[in-house]
């Protein structure tokens, strides 16, 4: 690995963006993950957050303690070192999804944009295997790579102010599951009855970085059955009676 192609951008005085490329590419994602882990291991004084994504690592620091130039020098040096990724075996997670209808209000838009039938969009979305490339946006939200290229669709021009928790959506060439009811700009094609984030659970988030994920198409009745069997004390708004009715 070499430092060619890396760049740094200051985000005001207390953060910087470390860019390693500008394409979503599994090899690059692996490099970013390994480098973020290496930055963590350095435990640099004043660094508070290391947030990796597909192509970038955002580093938040206390500018009274850590120096911008010293940080970028250290990260450049780490980028030059050979990757020492010691990945644990990936977990396999299957996420059941009720596609379309009220739970997937943008499925028809995706079908129109991709010139596929709605059923074909569902089949292709559920056939692929995805990898959790990055956690973030919201607690428990995983950014998944592996979306079939023909399903890519730009984000909505105006983000929705409310997207229900469990919504399965496509934004650009990324897909993911909204872990909370939040504002969001992705195209919602379905919803899972699983609870992606619950801070009272021992493992608050269903997904972790590096997980392998598949989606499985289910009916509204199956959605209701799984939702009823899934404890969800925090988000009564996603109880099946309200979302399926």
């Amino acid at each position, binding site marked *: 690995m070499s430092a060619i192609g890396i760049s740094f951008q*200051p985000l*005001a005085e207390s953060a910087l963006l470390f860019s390693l490329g500008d394409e979503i590419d599994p090899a690059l994602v692996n490099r970013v993950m390994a480098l973020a882990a290496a930055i963590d291991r350095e435990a640099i004084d004043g660094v508070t957050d290391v*947030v990796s994504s597909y192509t970038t690592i955002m580093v938040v620091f206390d500018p009274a303690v850590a120096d911008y130039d010293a940080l970028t020098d250290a990260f450049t040096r780490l980028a030059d070192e050979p990757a020492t990724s010691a990945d644990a075996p990936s977990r396999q997670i299957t996420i059941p999804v009720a596609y379309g209808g009220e739970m997937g209000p943008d499925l028809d838009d995706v079908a129109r944009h991709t010139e596929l039938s709605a059923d074909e969009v569902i089949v292709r979305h559920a056939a692929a295997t995805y990898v959790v490339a990055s*956690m973030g*946006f919201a607690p428990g939200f995983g950014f998944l790579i592996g979306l079939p290229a023909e399903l890519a669709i730009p984000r909505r*021009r105006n983000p929705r102010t409310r997207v229900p928790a469990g919504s399965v959506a496509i*934004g650009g060439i990324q897909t993911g599951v909204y872990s909370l009811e939040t504002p969001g700009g992705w195209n919602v094609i379905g919803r899972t009855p699983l609870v992606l984030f619950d801070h009272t659970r021992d493992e608050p*988030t269903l997904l972790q970085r590096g997980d392998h994920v598949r989606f499985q198409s289910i009916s509204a009745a199956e959605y209701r059955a799984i939702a009823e069997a899934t404890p969800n004390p925090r988000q009564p708004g996603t109880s099946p009676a309200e979302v399926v009715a």
Partner: protein
Amino acid sequence: MSRSIAVIEPGLLTTVQDLGRPGLMRFGFTPGGAIDRGALILGNRLVGNLPSAAGLEVTLIGPRLRFHGEAMVAITGADLGASLNRESVPLWTPLLVRDGDELSFDPLRDTKTGARAYICIAGGIDIAPVMGSRSTDLFGRFGGVEGRSLVADDRLPLGEPSESADQSLRRRLAVPPAVPLPDQPVRVVIGPQRQRFTDAGIATFFQASFSVSSQSDRMGMRLSGPPLALSHGADMISEGIAHGAIQVPGDGQPIVLLAGRQTVGGYPKIATVIGADLDRLGQRRPADRITFAEVDRPTAREAHLASLARLGDDAIVSDPAPGIGLPRANTGGLETPMIEREMGEISGWDATSVSRLVQSLHEANVVTFRLQIANLGVDLEWYRDADTGGEARRARAAEPVTSSVVPSPTPPDGAVVTAPMLGMFYRRPAPDQAPFVEEGHPVTNGQQIGLIEVMKTFHEITASRDGTLTEFHVEDGQFVEFGQTIATIADAA
């Protein structure tokens, strides 16, 4: 034991906040915490707390709170009309709140100079921390009180103060709080996606002024103004979002990401607000106007360190402990020997002797006086400017606040419906739906005639009597202030 605060009315958006939970962004947790961190830190310092103690963040329309047990309280940030037992109280000052006292916010006394006030209580709000912080994460719905803003009947337990009330009462700010200058631009460092905007888009960003949208919240301040032209579309690969990042979605309207923001996002970011200006930015109200100015990273760092220095231990000074007698400088002409004579003559501390002392002090032109013997305390403050004779009270005189909105004269033959809060007024339930009621149509008392949106919450506006709604005084989608006349209802024809 078990001192607490009971919520009578929650206000618009009142949350428990501290300095947040940094270090967890990699798991998707926003750092969160107070929007105006400086106001929370100074408020905590004024009542002897650590800067990280949990207080209440009050947004635009304040709560009504009842104290159970005595507490030292400092209210900082925006002057939203803070009142103790309906009397106006000063901000940035330790206040002794007694068992049963009611702290509230009077919208008529809101100076409209800020959006968020902080209520800091000695000992802090003693709820269980979640992942290292008591701050409310409204986005993740955890922390604070069940991850939500306060509602009526919530009960907030208070922690043990670190010092006596008397020690806290002697604390004050070393320097008066900065007066916000509305025209001062918000400073930013350009990037990281400078190249995704056209030169015209960048020029617009620095030349135009933007209006704060009523859809703003703790996550982000939505701005509206001339659209910022993107050169490569609004879709990009998601990446980490810094505090103060200004993202621009496809409609070209910027959103400044605040303490409660999402950790990662995929809209181009034109610039990042510098740390030194984040508190001031967070105090901008819906419909306020904002302009931006560019600085470089070293300037941003210097400004940040300087702003942090203003929040340190030195920010607070303690007046010397009062002894028997008064410091000469405070006596306003009263000779110390005279005080000592009075004190010497008072032995039993009954009502008569206290009023004799009060009378002597008043005649001697003493302006402020505090007497504390064992559990008994007297605080006195006279106001010369009001020329109200012997009136003595603890709170400052309420200053009349000139509202920027001149209320319409009440029509003699019809009731008026006034705005119960500031926000965006709508006559329709949704843009593509018919109005709740047309002008000239009959209405019944309690019937919905419109709604007000503020901080992404909606509030029904209802008819105040039976009759005919003769006129709306505000347009659909117009910003209204508290008390502004919305509609006139005449007797039914």
